[in-house]
């Protein structure tokens, strides 16, 4: 009996020393904070929930406030990870911004379902040149100017007031920057969707996840996605018409039919390469298992090669 017990003890000891470095069972705990882009907010919340299920002692807090806030907070060390929905500026990288691309999404132009010219707009779409005339040069002042008809209904142009990725990306599509976009500035993604929805003569833009309803996957009631006339033919051909639901537009972005910008990568940004085990593990999980929640939340995956590349960067290779 004694011998048997001794044997178990000894073999236990041997087992213990045989594999001394296995911290994987060590439970992660602590808090992880994120702030920034509205575009990434629903995805970050979903990831936070799922990650907390795996690691019950980890608390993840997510706050939206625009890409500018994300990068400023991350660089100031106020949050662990900033959510950024535009390209990272060189000056920000110089200040130590370490950005990891995590998913893709896109920005789409929107109008109200109450627009008096709705059918004509949906049939002809608008091309990039007209968007420039609307948002940049302000030469298109009526819907007639935009559609090249004689309609006198004036055009109410909306943009975002907060420094954000959606506006920066939409401006990039027009080869400009956010500050060049004219129009009434509305705060936040939901605010812009609401303003356009209510204004029959309004035109604006939204991240896909604020233009489409998360449950029905259709555009928000009252909001219509304005089709972009990609080939400049003055007509929306079936090949250019992929706005009917969220799956259709995300598929078009994945295929590369919808141009980029306004499709774009979304980033999680830390100050310097992430160091704490929690940050590293969260990012690693996001780029691997976390990717299976991407499609259901309304985003587009990055593709295996890009994911592997980002994983290697986190590990410093």
């Amino acid at each position, binding site marked *: 009996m004694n011998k048997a017990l001794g044997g178990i003890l000894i073999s236990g000891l041997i087992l213990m020393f045989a594999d001394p470095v296995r911290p994987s069972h060590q439970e992660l705990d602590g808090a992880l904070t994120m702030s920034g882009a509205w575009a990434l907010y629903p995805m970050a919340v979903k990831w936070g929930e799922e990650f907390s299920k795996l690691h019950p002692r980890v608390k993840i807090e997510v706050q939206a406030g625009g*890409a500018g806030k994300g990068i400023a907070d991350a660089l100031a060390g106020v949050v662990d990870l900033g959510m950024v929905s535009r390209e990272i500026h060189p000056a920000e990288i110089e200040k130590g911004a370490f950005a990891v691309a995590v998913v893709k999404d896109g920005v789409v132009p929107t109008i109200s379902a109450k627009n008096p010219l709705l059918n004509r707009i949906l049939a002809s779409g608008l091309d990039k040149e007209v968007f420039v005339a609307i948002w940049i040069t302000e030469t298109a002042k009526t819907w007639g100017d935009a559609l090249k008809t004689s309609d006198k209904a004036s055009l109410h142009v909306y943009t975002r007031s907060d420094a954000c990725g959606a506006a920066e990306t939409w401006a990039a599509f027009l080869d400009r920057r956010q500050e060049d976009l004219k129009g009434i500035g509305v705060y936040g993604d939901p605010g812009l969707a609401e303003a356009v929805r209510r204004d029959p003569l309004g035109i604006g833009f939204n991240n896909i996840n604020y233009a489409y309803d998360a449950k029905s996957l259709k555009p928000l009631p009252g909001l219509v996605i304005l089709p972009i006339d990609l080939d400049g033919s003055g007509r929306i051909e079936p090949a250019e018409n992929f706005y009917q639901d969220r799956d259709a537009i995300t598929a078009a972005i994945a295929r590369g039919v919808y141009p980029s910008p306004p499709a774009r990568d979304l980033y999680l940004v830390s100050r310097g390469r992430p160091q704490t085990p929690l940050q590293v593990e969260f990012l690693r999980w996001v780029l691997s298992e976390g990717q299976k929640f991407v499609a259901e939340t309304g985003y587009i995956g990055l593709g295996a090669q890009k994911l592997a590349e980002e994983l290697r960067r986190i590990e410093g290779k």
Partner: protein
Amino acid sequence: MLALSSVPALLVGLILIGLLVRARPILAEKPFFSLFFSSVWSPLKGNFGLFPFIMGTLWVTLVSLVLAVPVSLLTAIYLSEYAPRGVREFTKPIIDLLAGLPSVIYGVWGVLLIVPLVGQVIAPLFGATSSGYSVLAGGIVLAIMILPTIISVSLEVFSSIPYPMREASLSLGATKWETVHHVVLKKGLQGIIAAVVLGLSRAFGETMAVLMVVGNIPRPPKSVFDGGYPLPALIANNYGEMMSVPLYDAALMLAAAVLLLVVLFFNVLARLILIRVERRSA
């Protein structure tokens, strides 16, 4: 005690100095005139004209005062001089509650109610077209936010006026309104000015509620139906871009310093008026 009571004054000075030090790079590089009187705001191209924002602040504040001061003064007079005791006791806590509501609630309410009201009802009445996101919408929301402040301070002022003075006036044959006009308002004038300045200070600095309804267009407004862009909204909207654009942080600090100076200016002005009123009545 003296040292302690000088702390607030010292703090204001320190904040102002801090802001000006941070704003120095832009003051050193750009001519003064172009900073304050140019209407071109495009930081990436190095244009930092603060004029649209200063005008935006002044327009929104002025509109809110024009709307709020008469209403709140008449309310305070009614509650203090005419209303039955029950009405007064019932109304006071509600006014205090209004004063304590977080500003973002006023903002949401403004977006849902005031913006469509201005865009679809008020602007067409005046033959103007407006989306509703305008100086007027900002002014209305702000007016409602500063109403409770002005009302409750004025109420305090009126209640501090001794009753025998009113009785003396009434016994000389003055009507109730004449008593209000010649005794209550006259005696309470300093206090009323103080109440308005308190409201004014809140109006200048209010950020969130105004930002949500005012349209944020960096262009000096030409009418109350145009969008405007007040200084606090500029700082709140853009603080995120400070990190990446040269001189941007200096420009925003300068905007903050300007805001502080404007508030200081109006406070000092109100003080001077008060002193004159005091001298005259002495």
